[in-house]
């Protein structure tokens, strides 16, 4: 029997979006805004994905309280990896979500009208399909099965620039305009740098390279090996950096993502060699971010960008932050 896609929204564009996903992934769409009905579905059905639209903190708290009372926030019926929150406002306006054990994935609703909603649904269907798996690792899971995927094993940290420049050249060859190619190259630069310098931890969980200059030459072998994979289906490109530590901190990532540096002074922590602004810049620049991590085993951080005709549309594209954490 097909799993359920539960949509908690009355918006016509959300219905089109969810319907497209349900059709593509073969889920049974159930649409409701009645809290009793919603909680009983979560309790009784095999729910593959829950999409929640809310307009404000109060709305979210009411939803959260209903799940708490009727199902239990820490019940095995509730898997935050399968909760997707749809918002018109950017992630920095939705910081209250991060405190909730129900928070999983964030969708920035950049679709208005049925055509755009269906198109966004077609893109997000791959994401939902991947999240219904036991483990969603592998960029291939987020793309059409016939997409091209290439993988690069990095041997030394100093190869990063070479990899980034090769990718940039590849994108330009794939007809991405130069500015889009530069934005994507920058995002990948950040992913690789984080995988090399932020992921490694010692047995006590301490970040080994916190204070190491980012131009240091580090051998990437054994546990330190980094894999970079690239997928392209003619519409969107995805790039993942994979490390073998599984040390990413969900709260820290969300904090970085939701910091707005245009409104406050960017204060550098001189004791830390990294800068902490790379991911936020990527999301604001139009990129979707995917964080997949199995504790002490593996972390995959990916970016996905759709190729669009111009920068205006590129920066304003439908996007999301996916958090898949396995314990």
């Amino acid at each position, binding site marked *: 029997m097909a799993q359920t896609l539960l949509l908690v929204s009355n918006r016509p564009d959300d219905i089109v979006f969810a319907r497209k996903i349900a059709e593509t992934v073969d889920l049974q769409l159930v649409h409701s805004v009645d809290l009793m009905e919603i909680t009983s579905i979560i309790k009784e059905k095999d729910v593959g994905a829950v999409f929640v639209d809310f307009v404000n903190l109060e709305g979210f708290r009411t939803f959260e309280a209903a799940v708490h009372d009727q199902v239990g926030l820490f019940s095995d019926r509730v898997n935050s990896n399968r909760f997707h929150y749809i918002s018109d406002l950017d992630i920095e306006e939705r910081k209250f979500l991060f405190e909730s054990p129900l928070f999983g994935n964030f969708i920035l609703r950049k679709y208005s009208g049925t055509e755009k909603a269906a198109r966004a649904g077609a893109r997000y269907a791959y994401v939902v399909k991947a999240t219904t798996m036991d483990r969603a690792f592998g960029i291939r899971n987020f793309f059409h099965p016939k997409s091209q995927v290439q993988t690069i094993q990095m041997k030394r940290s100093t190869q990063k620039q070479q990899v980034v420049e090769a990718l940039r050249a590849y994108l330009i060859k794939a007809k991405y305009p130069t500015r889009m190619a530069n934005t994507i190259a920058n995002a990948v630069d950040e992913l690789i740098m984080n995988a090399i310098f932020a992921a490694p931890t010692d047995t006590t969980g301490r970040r080994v390279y916190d204070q190491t200059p980012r131009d240091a030459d580090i051998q990437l072998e054994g546990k330190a090996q980094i894999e970079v994979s690239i997928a392209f289906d003619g519409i969107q490109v995805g790039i993942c950096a994979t490390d073998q530590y599984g040390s990413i901190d969900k709260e820290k990532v969300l904090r970085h993502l939701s910091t707005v540096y245009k409104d406050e002074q960017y204060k*550098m922590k001189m004791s830390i060699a990294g800068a902490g602004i790379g991911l936020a810049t990527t999301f604001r620049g139009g990129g979707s971010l995917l964080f997949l991590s199995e504790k002490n085993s593996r972390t995959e951080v990916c970016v996905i960008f759709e190729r669009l005709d111009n920068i205006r549309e590129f920066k304003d594209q439908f996007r999301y932050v996916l958090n898949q954490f396995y314990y």
Partner: protein
Amino acid sequence: MIKVAKELNGNILVLRLSGSIEETVNLEEMVGPTPPEVRVDCKEITRINSVGVKGWIKYFQTLQTKNTKMTFFQCSTAIVEQVNLISNFVCGGTVESIYVPFACTNCKAELIALFKTADLNPSAIQLPELKCTKCSGKAVFDDIEEEYFSFLSR
């Protein structure tokens, strides 16, 4: 990797930066001692990563503490994006001119045009239509206006 060309005109040092600014950047070492006024030509800066941003701010904050007069001119789109994203990116300096991106509505070619910030009214940005240099088609501004020019309102 970043390259720095220096030109000293009396008490004014002109720095022409080109390439990408990343973790290898050490402007202090590359530039050396500076006079009371520094003008930074940013035309050829193609991209800047987060560690490059950190190195950039660290360097220009040092000049700021020395009361160096700083002017950033011919700012590339990569630099304008950073100026918009990070409130203290120019460390008290002045942005004199910026490149504005355009796209041809016919052949999709990417074009840029230089504007003096003094000529741009933040409350009512008015940009001319350009003629594409490749196909003579109509080229229009290609970015999000409220984002690209937001630094002008600070």
